[in-house]
């Protein structure tokens, strides 16, 4: 006769095993969601290809996103901007027809935000562009993408790392980005 905790452990094993598998499952599920449904590259109302425009036809970013240098927001081109070219160029393509139909009944195109920051974050494009930060630093190689995909995490730590690396003036003052 004697005493030891082993038998008790043995008795508890199945229960413990079940719980453990359950928790492991949670992790897997979480990861699966992040991996297979990242939502970093939503399907846009019009399959606009940055590759065709920015690389093949070498249109500079600021041609369409005119505000980036002057304003907090880069600005998406108005429908007219699209039409200006496309009532001559590639009129027959189905996607262009779509654009034209928007234009016909003066509807704006409801683009879906790919790079979306929380409402309490104030990111001024103009400061960054004027400081010579390339669009690609945050947006990735958009000019190579057919459908835009978010590559940067856009998380606070990520911003801070860059601010630190470049010793941005007051770059670590919370009020620089949160107001």
């Amino acid at each position, binding site marked *: 006769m004697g005493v030891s905790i082993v038998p008790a452990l043995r008795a508890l094993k199945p229960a413990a095993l079940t719980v453990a598998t359950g928790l492991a499952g949670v992790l897997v599920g979480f990861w699966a969601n992040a991996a297979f449904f990242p939502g970093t590259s939503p399907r846009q109302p019009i399959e606009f290809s940055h590759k065709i425009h920015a690389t093949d036809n070498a249109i500079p970013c600021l041609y369409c996103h005119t505000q980036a240098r002057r304003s907090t927001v880069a600005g998406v081109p108005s429908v007219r901007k699209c039409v200006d070219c496309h009532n001559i160029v590639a009129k027959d393509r189905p996607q262009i027809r779509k654009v034209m139909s928007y234009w016909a009944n003066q509807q704006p195109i409801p683009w879906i935000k790919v790079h979306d920051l929380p409402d309490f974050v*104030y990111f001024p494009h*103009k400061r960054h562009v*004027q400081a010579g930060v390339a669009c690609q630093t945050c947006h990735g190689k958009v000019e190579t993408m057919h459908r835009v995909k978010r590559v940067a995490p856009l998380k606070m730590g990520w911003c801070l790392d860059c601010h630190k690396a470049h010793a941005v003036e007051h770059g670590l003052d919370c*009020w620089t980005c*949160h107001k």
Partner: protein
Amino acid sequence: MKRDDERGMHEKWREYRRPGYYEELDYAWTMTIDLDRCTGCEACVTACKAENNLPIVGEKAFAQGREIQWMRIERYWEGEYPNARLRFIPMLCQHCEAAPCETVCPVTATYHNQDGLNAQIYNRCIGTRSCAVYCPYEVRYFNYNNHHWDPPLDQQLNPDVTVREKGVMEKCTFCIQRIRQAKDLAKDDGRRRVRDGEVQPACVQACPAEALVFGDRKDPASRVSASMNDPRAYRVLDELNTRPSVIYLKKVTTDAG
């Protein structure tokens, strides 16, 4: 400013032991309020509401004492009829250099920034409300619930200022969005500094009696420095040694005649 890694251990230690940390503030934003000019008309109060997305809380909230007024007018009666006099004093965040509210925040949602401002970061706040307890000026306001603007009133909201959610403390920021704007413009036309008078918080801008003056007290030429040196200058509750950045000019009384 040198980068972190460029500084020696010893130098760093000295910095970290320096009271208030900043050797010199970048700007030292200051407001003076001339009580002899102030008429208590509350234009400043409205201006603040308009600029900073202060909620429309409703009658019930007022009855419960849950109004939100970053800028408020306090009124004190003196004497009795027929010699009763009414004294007004605008009360807003004093942006103290030794702010009691800053130290108590467990998550540094409020701290002192390099412009000598007492920052309040809404999205970091967890709502312990201890800062409001520690503030002797009662200028910190808590969001007891989410606020609603009957549409289209919401279209008036200032896109440069966050709309605060329930459970968050808020207070006067000296219109940080305007300060930032001014700095931005200065940068755009390649100036190092913001010119005096370029930034005006909403309340200062509105005041019909020009009782409020705002500016950088580091700049000896600024209007605010001038009015700070007025012999009438004093700080409210200065016995508490909170070293406010809001300076009041005494009300002038006259003998009969």
